């Protein structure tokens, strides 16, 4: 191997052998110890060892053998330096920016849901998925974009595969985005249903953001950090005030909303937030959520290290057989669909080909940002898993199972869950709700509340105090809701631009993003698209998450498969066929997982079709099935399931079409005897004025 690095000395070799032994030992404890609960630190230590080894060895292999990153080559930031979008930037600054852009609610939700199968399956998938698939995808797309002037994923697909695959991917991304927004908004709905405290604090973020926006505009322009601190103090005050709202007889009913009402509020809010000028609401909320996100991730890490909780969930639960209450389906393929962000996330390919490649000062830093950034996200996913697995299993299942399965009273829920082998008393469930200042914790699927209870417990262990657990719980809820809502606002805007772009293909003037009518129309379409799925989730018999999360997982993994297929094509086009397996095997794995999961959602016992048939048959026999109370509501559930089935079919079709294009491109490139990839020509970093100095 013509590696540019120096051969490691004996001390370095001993160090790596030691890390490998410690990692293997910890992983062995996590995987093999049975019968007695283990401490979370084993799991965290095993994860760190796997990440460090993966980064040093596999990441380096991808860097030198597959991508052949070249520190002497001038990157786009140097070649096209404009001081704004293309700026050679310090690698730690780029790393921080990249991580803040990729880490969101996803890695906090998926692992919590997947914990129903025990903590081991999820852990193993996160650890090995990220090293061999997720981080490889992020790093390779970043590497490809670096060699192509920082072009976007869609642009690279058009260049390397042709115009039609570019359009296929564009449609795929738009549909994925609508599902992402709906599912994330549903997480907020689930967390806030009949929770006056939570609803009040989240509602307060709107006036706080408006205030921040005005301050930034007129009082102290551009002082982001200053205004964010003011915003944070106001947020903490509103959490504190939330308790009094919840206790007040007059105010509590105002903020005590059901799932349907909350869904409508969010839809209306999403529309307004993305139509208003960005400086007023969207931007300030974005700043606040970015800083709060990083702060909370650090807080969670500290809490886990200091509290060192014992994992109370079993390593492997009985629900690997596909009968779990949180989501239906066997370990294969549904574990790999449920945990997307954290192991491998298609969405990252958009960010890795967005701003990041325009900022990197040197190709030699791409591994740290691309591969390393994704490992950090996987670490967040591991922490979310730990927070969920350190809960009492009875509490975990009570919070995450739909009402249709465990009933709506604590007595019924405790009896049902105890029958599954996770013995819990109604008092324990009541007490947990009381501790966190809520009336009920039953059926709050979606990850956020579970993580919030887990986090509140951990933080309460470190910083005890009367009533503090309720404060921490609502802090965690607020933080998740805040950045989910930011994603909803910004996503609605981006979705609107995408809709206008697609409409522009049909009728040119519609593309004009400055036209008010076009703006309102495209925003309305965008909000209606995700709003439909959100409302569907709010009235869903199985609570929504159970139905929609698999759809989101399939869509996200579909995009990851598309990104990895692009990487595979480019590797062949560069005539590096020996390494085609590096992006090829994860691509095949994701294609197999998404198509199998898609098929099981189309036909068979856990499919959308079966759910639709069940309600259609009952309707014909004149019966009403919960939660529907009218024949019209029954009909609505039938229609919703047909829509979900159709969407699953579309995702599968997109993957198959993309696969055909990919195989065709690979076959052609394989027969050609010279490289055919569309890389920009080599320019030496030394030859660019000011370039060599930037790369230090």
């Amino acid at each position, binding site marked *: 191997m013509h590696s540019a690095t120096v051969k490691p000395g004996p001390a370095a070799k001993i160090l790596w052998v030691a890390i490998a032994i410690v990692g293997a030992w910890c992983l062995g404890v996590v995987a093999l110890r049975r019968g007695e609960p283990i401490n979370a630190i084993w799991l965290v230590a095993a994860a760190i060892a796997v990440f460090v080894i993966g980064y040093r060895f596999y990441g380096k292999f991808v860097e030198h053998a597959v991508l052949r990153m070249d520190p002497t080559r001038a990157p786009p930031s140097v070649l096209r*330096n*404009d*001081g*704004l*979008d293309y*700026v050679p*930037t*310090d690698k*730690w*600054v*780029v790393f*921080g*920016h990249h991580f*803040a*852009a*990729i*880490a*969101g*609610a*996803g890695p906090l939700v998926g692992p919590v849901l997947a914990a129903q199968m025990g903590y081991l399956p999820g852990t193993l998938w996160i650890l090995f998925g990220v090293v061999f698939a997720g981080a490889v995808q992020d790093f390779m797309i970043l590497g490809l974009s670096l060699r192509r002037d920082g072009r*976007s994923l869609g642009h690279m697909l058009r260049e390397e595969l042709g115009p039609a695959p570019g359009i296929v991917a564009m449609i795929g991304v738009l549909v994925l985005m609508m599902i*992402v927004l709906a599912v*994330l908004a549903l997480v907020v709905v689930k967390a806030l249903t009949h929770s006056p405290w939570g609803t009040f604090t989240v509602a307060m973020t709107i006036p706080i953001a408006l205030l921040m926006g005005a301050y930034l505009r007129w009082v102290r*322009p*551009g002082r*982001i*950090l200053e205004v964010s601190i003011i915003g944070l103090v106001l947020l903490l005050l509103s959490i504190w005030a939330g308790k009094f709202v919840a206790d007040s007889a007059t105010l509590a009913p105002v903020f005590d909303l059901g799932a349907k009402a909350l869904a409508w509020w969010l839809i209306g809010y999403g529309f307004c937030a993305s139509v208003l000028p*960005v*400086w007023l609401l*969207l*931007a300030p909320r*974005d*700043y606040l959520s*970015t*800083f709060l996100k*990083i702060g909370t991730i650090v807080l969670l890490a500290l809490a886990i290290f200091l509290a060192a909780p014992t994992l109370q969930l079993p390593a492997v639960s009985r629900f690997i057989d596909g009968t779990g209450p949180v989501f239906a389906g066997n370990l294969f393929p549904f574990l790999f669909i449920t945990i997307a*962000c954290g192991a491998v*996330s298609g*969405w*990252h390919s*958009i*960010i890795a080909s*967005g*701003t990041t490649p325009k*900022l990197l000062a040197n190709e030699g830093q791409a591994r740290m940002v691309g591969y390393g950034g994704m490992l950090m996200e996987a670490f967040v996913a591991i922490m979310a898993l730990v927070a969920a697995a350190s809960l009492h299993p009875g509490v975990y299942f009570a919070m995450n199972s739909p009402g249709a399965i465990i009933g709506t009273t604590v007595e019924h829920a405790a009896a049902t869950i105890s029958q599954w082998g996770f013995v819990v008393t109604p008092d324990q469930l009541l007490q947990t709700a009381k501790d966190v200042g809520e009336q009920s914790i039953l059926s709050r699927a979606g990850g956020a509340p579970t993580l919030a209870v887990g986090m509140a417990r951990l933080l309460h262990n470190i910083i005890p105090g009367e009533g503090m657990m309720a404060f921490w719980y609502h802090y965690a809820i607020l933080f998740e809701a805040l950045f989910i809502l*930011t*994603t909803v606002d*910004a*996503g609605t*805007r*981006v979705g609107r*631009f*995408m809709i206008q772009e697609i409409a522009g293909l049909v009728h040119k003037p519609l593309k004009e*993003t400055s036209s008010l009518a076009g703006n309102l129309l495209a925003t309305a379409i965008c909000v209606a698209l995700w709003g439909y799925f959100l409302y569907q989730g709010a009235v869903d018999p199985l609570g929504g998450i159970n139905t929609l999360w698999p759809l*989101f997982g399939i869509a*996200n993994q579909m995009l990851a498969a598309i990104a990895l297929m692009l990487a595979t094509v480019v590797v062949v086009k560069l005539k590096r066929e020996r390494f085609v397996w590096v992006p090829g095997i994860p691509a095949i794995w994701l294609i197999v997982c998404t198509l199998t999961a898609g098929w099981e959602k189309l036909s068979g016992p856990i499919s959308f079709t079966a759910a639709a048939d069940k309600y259609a048959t009952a309707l014909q026999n004149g019966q009403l099935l919960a939660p529907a109370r009218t024949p019209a509501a029954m009909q609505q559930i039938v229609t919703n399931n047909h829509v979900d089935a159709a969407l699953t079919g579309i995702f599968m079709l997109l993957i198959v079409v993309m696969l055909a294009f990919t195989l065709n491109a690979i076959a052609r490139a394989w027969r050609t005897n010279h490289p055919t990839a569309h890389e920009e020509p080599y320019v030496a970093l030394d030859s660019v004025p000011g370039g060599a100095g930037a790369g230090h």
Partner: protein
Amino acid sequence: MDAATAFRSVRRWAVQTARLCCGVPDYEVYVKHLREHHPERPVPSYAEFFRERQEARYKGTGGRCC
């Protein structure tokens, strides 16, 4: 490197990262770039620069993850 310089460079790094996470690149770098390469163009004030970047952040398809 003495403690004060180290502290200053860490602070500068933190501020730069925090701003970039919000889509605002380094203002000084931009001004330097303008002076060196486009001396004919007017140099915007920080407030103008900030506004332009704020608008630009929510225009494209970049953004953040789920």
